């Protein structure tokens, strides 16, 4: 017997056939390396363009630069690769929820180019979301190349996203946690191991290419008791700013949605507005890592009022860039805004309590970042691990947990869905594994149809119908036109019950007189959620399924429960 062997089908290799975990780990590493490299490319690209344009920024007309960059980015996305705009992460979550992890191959590079143009030219946005979608698309397309199934594809998609985040922040655990907390929403063993491997691979690659100090340098901060207490105030402050930022971006989106201009013109307008702000406060331009660096080092010189102005200017610039269609993410801007907020809070503490010895201002900047990540992204763990890895120590862990958890809790009270999820939740596209919505959306009416129903004709007498009933095991009898098979109505056992023992009526009554014609009808293409909604509101347990006027079968809650339970067992048991 000749063994079937193909290098494109690693799932059939003897090594991987019994258990796909090894396959996922190996391919996860590959994906992690690739997405890590994508992150490195994007970072270098942005830096190159930003520095290339730096000499021009002394001119007043330079405020056109972000506008031009944003417009070019939008033109590239819509005309060249023909994709829809968007922040990146929501598309990845949508793909996990609805498409089984499928992403277009062009997404592997499209957002990289677009965000390179947007951010390099000075737009206020982050490179993380674009790199997450690129990494995820790399994972998804590698999985497709190797003909993997949807579950494996989702895992590899997560590997790609994790590799990208790990690489860009030099923070493997933050990458892992971000993917589990935000992208997949599921902490299962099958995911964790390959994604952890991908995170490590991505981080290693970026360390190899640009040294072990990528985004921010390691610092240690001595934390005193009063710092920990003061953090509670900072948590509320960052929560407030998170809510403000979320709403500002959303409103900007609504306003730009009402404007009837071509998308590139909108992006250009937003970009130019950012450029104007940039003339006054240069710190708002770009992804803003350089100012974060200054703040962590403690070399950011401006006083409290200027810091606050910078904070709100960055808020406004980010909402202008992203709300008006620029390409980029929310992650880096929220880190910048967070560090401004932390710095401002620190300045306030020093003014109020000059005698106490506070933790350095860099420490507060980091805590502010954690507060914003916890608040805006509703991802407290990502915030905590990111800052722990950036500072390279556990000294700040206590205030970090306080700020992150309080901020996300307070923010949740005002904005239950994070900025990534809000639109998905509103459209019912956020389907986390093991939830009711997930199970119901996976099931289709087609799967639930019971087809072994006995069909009766309208001109049958009650006697003939009762003969049919005695030989059948069902309680529902669809009535079909004898000639063209059109569905006319339904006879239920309850309809016959009053006449069962009235033998004198057997020949005087026809099926067409007994049948129900005013029925709620399900169609093959209907969603199970909608059909269940009708059943619940009418208090019925079964509905006929009709397609093109012809009876197909019945759906009932009893069968649904059977399928629902099996589905839940398959979806939630992890091995």
């Amino acid at each position, binding site marked *: 017997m000749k063994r079937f062997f193909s290098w494109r089908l690693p799932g059939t290799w003897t090594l991987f056939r019994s258990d796909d975990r090894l396959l996922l780990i190996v391919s996860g590493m590959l994906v992690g390396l690739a997405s890590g490299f994508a992150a490195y490319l994007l970072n270098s690209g942005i830096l190159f363009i930003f520095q290339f344009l730096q000499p021009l920024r002394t001119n007043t007309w330079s405020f056109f630069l972000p506008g031009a960059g944003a417009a070019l980015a939008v033109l590239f996305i819509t005309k060249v690769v023909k994709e829809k705009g968007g922040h990146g992460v929501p598309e990845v979550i949508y793909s996990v929820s609805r498409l089984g992890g499928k992403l277009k191959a062009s997404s592997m590079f499209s957002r990289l180019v677009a965000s390179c143009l947007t951010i390099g030219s000075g737009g206020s946005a982050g490179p993380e979301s674009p790199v997450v979608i690129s990494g995820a698309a790399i994972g998804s397309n590698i999985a497709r190349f190797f003909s993997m199934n949807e579950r494996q594809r989702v895992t590899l998609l997560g590997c790609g996203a994790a590799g990208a985040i790990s690489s860009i922040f030099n923070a493997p655990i933050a990458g892992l946690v971000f993917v589990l907390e935000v992208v997949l929403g599921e902490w299962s063993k099958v995911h964790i191991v390959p994604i952890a491997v991908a995170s490590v691979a991505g981080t290693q690659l970026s360390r190899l290419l640009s040294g072990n100090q990528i985004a921010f340098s390691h610092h240690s901060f001595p934390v005193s008791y009063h710092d920990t207490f003061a953090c509670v105030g900072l948590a509320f402050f960052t929560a407030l700013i998170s809510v403000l930022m979320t709403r500002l971006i959303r409103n900007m989106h609504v306003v730009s949605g009402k404007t009837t201009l071509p998308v590139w013109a909108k992006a250009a307008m937003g970009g130019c507005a950012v450029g104007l702000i940039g003339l006054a406060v240069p710190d708002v331009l770009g992804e803003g890592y350089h100012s974060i660096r200054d703040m962590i080092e403690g070399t950011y010189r401006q006083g409290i009022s200027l810091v606050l102005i910078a904070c709100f200017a960055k808020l406004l610039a980010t909402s202008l860039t992203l709300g008006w269609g620029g390409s980029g993410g929310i992650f880096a801007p929220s880190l910048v805004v967070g560090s401004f907020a932390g710095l401002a809070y620190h300045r306030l503490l020093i003014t109020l309590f000059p005698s106490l010895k506070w933790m350095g201002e860099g420490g507060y900047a980091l805590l502010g970042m954690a507060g914003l990540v916890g608040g805006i992204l509703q991802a407290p763990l990502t915030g905590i691990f990111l800052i722990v890895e950036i500072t390279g120590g556990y000294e700040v862990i206590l205030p970090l947990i306080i700020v992150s958890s309080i901020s996300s809790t307070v923010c949740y009270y005002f904005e239950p869905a994070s900025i990534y999820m809000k639109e998905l939740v509103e459209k019912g596209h956020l389907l986390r594994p093991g939830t*009711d919505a997930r199970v119901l959306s996976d099931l289709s009416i087609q799967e639930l149809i019971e087809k072994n129903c006995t069909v009766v004709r309208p*001109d049958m*007498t009650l006697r003939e119908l009762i003969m049919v009933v005695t030989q059948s095991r069902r309680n529902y009898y669809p009535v079909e036109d004898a000639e063209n098979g059109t569905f006319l109505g339904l006879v239920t056992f*309850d309809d016959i*019950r*009053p*006449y069962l023992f*009235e*033998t*004198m*009526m057997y*020949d*005087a*009554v*026809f099926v067409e*007189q*007994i049948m129900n014609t005013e029925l709620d009808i399900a169609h093959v293409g209907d969603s199970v959620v909608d059909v269940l909604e009708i059943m*619940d509101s009418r208090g019925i347990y079964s509905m006929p399924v009709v397609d093109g006027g012809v009876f197909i079968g019945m759906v009932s809650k009893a069968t649904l429960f059977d399928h629902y339970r099996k589905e839940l067992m398959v979806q939630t048991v992890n091995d």
Partner: protein
Amino acid sequence: MKLELEKLALGLQLSTETLERWIRQGRIPVKKTDGLCDFKKDVLDSWALKHHIRFSLIETPVTPDDDISCKSAEEPTLLSAMIRGGVHTGIGGNTVVDVLKQVVNRVPMISEADQGILLEKLIERERLTSTGIGKGVAIPHPRNPLPGNDRDAVIVSCFLDNKIDFKSIDHKPVGVLFLIICPTVKTHLFLLSRISFCLRDDSFITLLSSQPSPDEFYKSVEAIENRIEKG
């Protein structure tokens, strides 16, 4: 607000056992104090909305599941329909069509044109299968409610001079006709089941064969109907 467990369970469309378990497991923002459910209405409202659970505390009238008693409240009685149609004797004719022609003439408050349509429908129905339901009784009726008929149901009771061959199931010649005209199929089925019930009574059959006076006939129908309604 505070509410009995049963009432809250009813409002949430849950069994009391399920509600009790949910409270114990902390799945629902309700506390149990002194056997009463303690909750905030707005909190529970938003919780129910979030979890797609119906919640309303409006008292819904309990609908009786006894279908027959429900029907008798809204449907006309057999007696009232029979009184509207009247009892008729002295109907001659030797064929089904002859008899039906005369019966149609006896239907009260109906125009001549409508009589023609009715007769056509009755003959059409007989052609499908005989309405002779046995024991010497036939119940001619149109297959579907007559168009534009929104009057109360009418049953015309007719005693024939000569028993005729109606092609009944039990092959017995038919001497009594109940012509049924109803505004809806539902009423038709209801009255038909009542007639069918009456015909199960042997004393009623004997009464029919004696060609009773209208009063005697109505009294007998009323007695049987009372028996049905008492269950």
